[in-house]
């Protein structure tokens, strides 16, 4: 059992209504974290977080990084106490 913290920014913050959160995971897997988040925040979060075409984390227009600034994918593992930031992946303009 590990604990993983989350930070929600921009559109993620708007959907969750929270700046951050904390989850207890049985397995140290991003897939379990994603499942817990979508379960907690519902269909809209699922439409944002999961790409139905790949069943991976939705990579289009989004960005998820760990505390070192490294992007995470669905098959990555997580360490106890890690903080994952959920961000909008947009550039330019």
């Amino acid at each position, binding site marked *: 059992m590990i604990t993983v913290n989350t930070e929600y920014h921009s559109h993620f913050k*708007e*959907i969750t209504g929270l700046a951050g959160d904390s989850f207890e995971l049985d397995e140290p897997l991003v897939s379990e974290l994603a499942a817990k988040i979508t379960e907690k925040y*519902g*269909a*809209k979060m699922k*439409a944002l977080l999961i790409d139905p075409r790949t069943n991976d984390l939705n990579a289009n227009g989004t960005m998820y990084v760990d505390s070192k600034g490294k992007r995470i994918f669905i098959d990555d593992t997580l360490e106890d106490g890690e903080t994952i930031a959920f961000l909008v992946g947009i550039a330019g303009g």
Partner: protein
Amino acid sequence: MSALPQKELVTGETWYQPGDEIPNVTTKLFALRNQCTECNVCEVACSLVHSPDGEINPQLSRIQINHAPDKQTKASPAGLGFVADICHHCGNPPPCAEVCPTDAFYYDPLTQAAVIDQDNCIQCMECVPGCPFDVVFVAPSGELLKCDLCGGDPVCVKACSTRPELLNVGKQYNRMPVLFYEEQPEFNRLSREEPVARDEVGMMQAMLERGEISSGA
């Protein structure tokens, strides 16, 4: 009404005979007032599907987008920013058909929408002021343009880029285009309520404040 000419569809279906009772148009198109972004995609799509030879020309579209915040039209008496003007399929028979001196209007049996038969139309333009909503348009060639509901699957609805989220249609996560069918009751209700606008800001803000739609879009 009984004088309306009857025609055969290219598909071979029979049209209503004189004296037949014509069913109401149950599927209608509306635009949520002042939520349109003037992206013009509906105009592009409408002109393309109605073109016999694959031409896109917004001037030949049966839906017209206007950004005239101060201009009051019959369709938008309050003068509310962007307006997507399109046929309301309002009566049965509709006023535009009733004033037609050549009875050039006929009915699509799939949608019961009144459609202009260009072969019979003499381009007298009586139907233009005859329309209570100013939504029969005139092409540069003089051709009269009126929404025909695309035979039941309106391309403008599919193309509409603005899709506010609708929370109160049940638990299902749902979004709808600003253009919509009348049979969608929530939009129907919203469209009939008097829009509350702050300057050009529009009713989206007002609806957000009233909690009628969510802020997702």
